[in-house]
């Protein structure tokens, strides 16, 4: 039952084969049993879930509701949920219960989905391994000694282990795609502005984007139907109407032009990962696609550009966590400065502090032009690379990450090695285009994700391409051993 797709479950709910309360209990029981090994949830909202499930059953009873009605899902713990603890993986917000609901979670709730709880993440979404959480590292369900990826590692691990049908994630530099790749699930980072950021705790505002994570492209499409769209509460959200993300899932791929950027297949890419990606590309050729080598010449510059822009914005975005109005405040501050310094030193973890300092430095008088402005110029070049490439091809494919999931603790002492993990994902955020990660095979027992990048607002196209692949392969249907017996 836990392995079923959203549309199958929706059908079973409508057929009264199962109720939403039963389904919800099943997932709650799986969380209780398996999550102690994974640590994928920070908060399990059992009562809220059962209430929502009961309400969903009542709706279904009347023949109402959407496909998502009664489906148990999880939310990354940086979406503010009214009345439910929202920590952002940080001690800073260990006591923060928002009196408001984010647009994303609100829309999904309006669609009738049941919230099982809030998933673990790298603190303030800063990380590629989910080891930077105040609530402890998340383990990869395929191998408990490996990381699940980050920062949406809790959502990815929970889905892979069958602890939730689907989940929300956010992607600032790869935080949906990389954990999706490491955990063998499907994840979509939409075009910047396609999904509202209102109520999403900001890391880097010009890069952050919420998106769906699930077992398949089709499930992601169901979530997108609810999540996407203009929100007047987010000035950067796009007014452009949304597509029907389900309508074209079955469109044939004959004639599809796929671009393979040569920079994505250079040094640093694990050879087994490369083989798996090329095998996946062959599969697309069988489906009628044509392949073209392309170039995204500024790829290497995406790391320095990202690691200036994102920390700069973060240094400002995280200023509001000052111990004055909410969140952690140190004990017995002796004056205002002491309160600021100790509240923030105690509330933020090392990686967050590091990025605040990097960003503060980059924006400082005398350094701004050399760092922030230069990074923005590179960002424009990277964007132009994609725009140019996407005039010639329909989608761009490549690896999501240079390797499969690495060992817990193996890169924590080498931040540069950790940052290099993001080489294939960062540029997509800098350009603002949509991209997906879909399961494409296994290397030494660990999942490998294929990245599919597309043009602005081409989410429906990406979902169609991914869905067609998943109609002809079963990589996305694999289940880790630890998830089975339960």
């Amino acid at each position: 039952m836990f392995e079923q797709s959203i549309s199958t479950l929706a059908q079973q709910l409508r057929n009264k084969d199962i109720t939403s309360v039963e389904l919800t209990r099943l997932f709650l029981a799986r969380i209780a049993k398996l999550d102690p090994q994974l640590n994928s949830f920070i908060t399990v909202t059992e009562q809220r879930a059962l209430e929502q499930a009961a309400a969903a059953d009542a709706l279904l009873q009347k023949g109402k509701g959407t496909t998502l009605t009664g489906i148990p899902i999880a939310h990354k713990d940086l979406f503010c949920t009214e009345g439910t603890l929202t920590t952002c993986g940080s001690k800073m917000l260990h006591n923060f219960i928002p009196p408001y609901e984010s647009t994303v979670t609100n829309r999904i709730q309006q669609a009738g989905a049941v919230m099982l709880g809030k998933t673990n993440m790298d603190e303030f979404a800063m990380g590629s391994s989910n080891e930077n959480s105040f609530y402890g590292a998340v383990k990869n369900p395929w191998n408990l000694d490996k990381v699940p990826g980050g920062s949406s590692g809790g959502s990815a691990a929970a889905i892979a282990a069958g602890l939730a049908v689907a989940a929300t994630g956010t992607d600032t530099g790869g935080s949906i795609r990389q954990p999706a790749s490491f955990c063998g699930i499907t994840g979509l980072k939409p075009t910047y502005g396609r999904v509202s950021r209102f109520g999403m705790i900001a890391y880097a505002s010009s890069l952050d984007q919420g998106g769906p994570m699930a077992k398949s492209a089709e499930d992601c499409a169901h979530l997108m139907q609810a999540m996407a769209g203009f929100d007047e509460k987010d000035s950067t959200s796009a007014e452009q109407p949304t597509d029907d993300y389900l309508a074209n899932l079955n469109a044939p791929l004959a004639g599809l032009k796929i671009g393979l950027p040569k920079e994505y297949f250079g040094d640093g890419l694990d050879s087994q990962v490369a083989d798996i990606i090329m095998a996946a590309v062959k599969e697309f050729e069988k489906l009628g696609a044509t392949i073209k080598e392309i170039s995204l010449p500024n790829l290497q510059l995406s790391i320095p550009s990202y690691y200036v822009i994102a920390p700069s914005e973060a240094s400002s975005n995280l200023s509001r966590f000052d111990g004055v109005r909410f969140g952690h405040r140190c004990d017995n501050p002796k004056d205002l400065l002491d309160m600021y310094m100790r509240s923030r030193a105690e509330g933020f973890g090392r990686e967050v502090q590091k990025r605040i300092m990097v960003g503060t430095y980059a924006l400082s008088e005398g350094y701004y032009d050399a760092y922030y402005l230069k990074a923005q110029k590179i960002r424009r070049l990277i964007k132009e690379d994609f725009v140019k490439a996407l005039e010639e091809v329909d989608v761009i494919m490549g690896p999501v990450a240079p390797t499969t999931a690495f060992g817990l603790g193996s890169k924590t002492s080498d931040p540069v090695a950790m940052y290099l993990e993001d080489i294939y994902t960062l540029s997509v955020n800098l350009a603002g285009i949509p991209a997906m990660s879909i399961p494409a095979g296994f290397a030494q027992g660990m999942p490998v994700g294929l990245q599919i990048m597309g043009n602005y607002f081409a989410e429906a196209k990406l979902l169609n391409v991914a869905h067609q692949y998943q109609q002809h392969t079963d990589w996305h249907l694999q289940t880790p051993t630890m998830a089975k017996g339960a």
Partner: protein
Amino acid sequence: MNWEVVIGLEIHTQLSTKSKLFSGAAVGFGAEPNTQTTLVDLGMPGALPVFNKEALRMAVMFGHAINAEIGMTSVFARKNYFYPDLPKGYQTSQMDHPIVGKGYLDVMLEDGTTSRVGITRAHLEEDAGKSLHEDFQGMTGIDLNRSSTPLLEIVSEPDIRSAKEAVAYVKMIHSIVTYLGICDGNMAEGSMRCDINLSLRPKGQKEYGTRTEIKNVNSFRFIEKAIYTEIERQADILEDGGRIIQETRLYDPEKNETRSMRSKEDANDYRYFPCPDLLPVVLTQEYVDNIKANLPELPSQKAARFQSDYALSEYDANVLSSSRAMADFFENANGVVKDPKLTANWVMGELSKLLNQEQLDINNSPVSAQAFGELLVRIKDDTINGKTAKDVFQAMWDGEGSADDIIDAKGLKQVTDTGAIETMIQTILDANAAQVEQYRAADEDKQKKMIGFFVGQVMKASQGKANPGLVNPILVKMLKG
């Protein structure tokens, strides 16, 4: 040493929008603390700003009024610093691309000359909240009602050379923003606050001296006094061979002194960068032109119209148009009187005198423009003379009723019956035979001087009610014998 003072002003003008610059919360003075706030004003995690287009319209209006370039693409930037009443840890402002670019104002000085003050820029920004140190033993209260209230910061070039010029400039800005209806102009409530950048240099020197910035001065009088004391302070230091420290100072009106707040070394590095939560504001020419076409009459335009339509002197026209409230009072009263010169004299004379005495704003005048006009009508139709009218006006001011009520009740109607006046004059001439003799013997020049004595006697005898316009010719005729 002969010093030249160099002054540049930054004026923070609170725009009179209904809601805040980046949220839907109401803007208002004096509400219970923290009742006029939303998630955005409180800086809650995940809350996002939405730009108030009304503030944009107002800023563009101002830009047109000061002959400025309008920023067709303006960008909001974050000014980062920590303070408890700054909930987000940054103020959203504009830095490199302000909504209003270079402009200027021609400021009329007291001696009737005009001087041109350049305006560097005017940009939109949000206000901070307030820290309340009283009422909280050993703690600070935070009121975020003011947080995200829209401000237009108007930055002048260092073109101002005296305290008087500074005040004239601020008054002109005040007059423009109230004319445009984009600010209520209430300085006591902080709707206009002024930062004064001031330095001295030896007369004739080209380079500027080191400046200080006096923060948050909020009345015309304090601006003038703060400038005088700061000039004196800087001159004393320089003349003793000392050096001015670049710093921020506060003006204390009670002690009439400025004192150091923080030096440049302590100054924040604000780490400005474009706000990623707000898109650049891109205007169309049509939008900008449309606002220009619908701009209300400005003080200088009104002054020109007062000269051409009402034949007022340049001076009178400028004084009357200096505030929209005074201009409106004048025009409303004149609508009743239909005698612009008489109305102008009375608005600038008696009315201004009583307003000043009681430190009242013309909006709070106890005598309405209509009632004021009715009084002047009674001068025009010879019911009372000017002197009596002053007494009637005082009675109206004191709430004794309309002009006609007071004239009736006190029997102040002017004597216009020539027979009665002749009888009155005859009595006076009879009682002052010696002076009459003197008058008749005198030459014309001397007679002119002496006539005042007889007029005075007649007015006294009539208790001021004799119509002076009638008294004079009759008196002259009767004195000739």
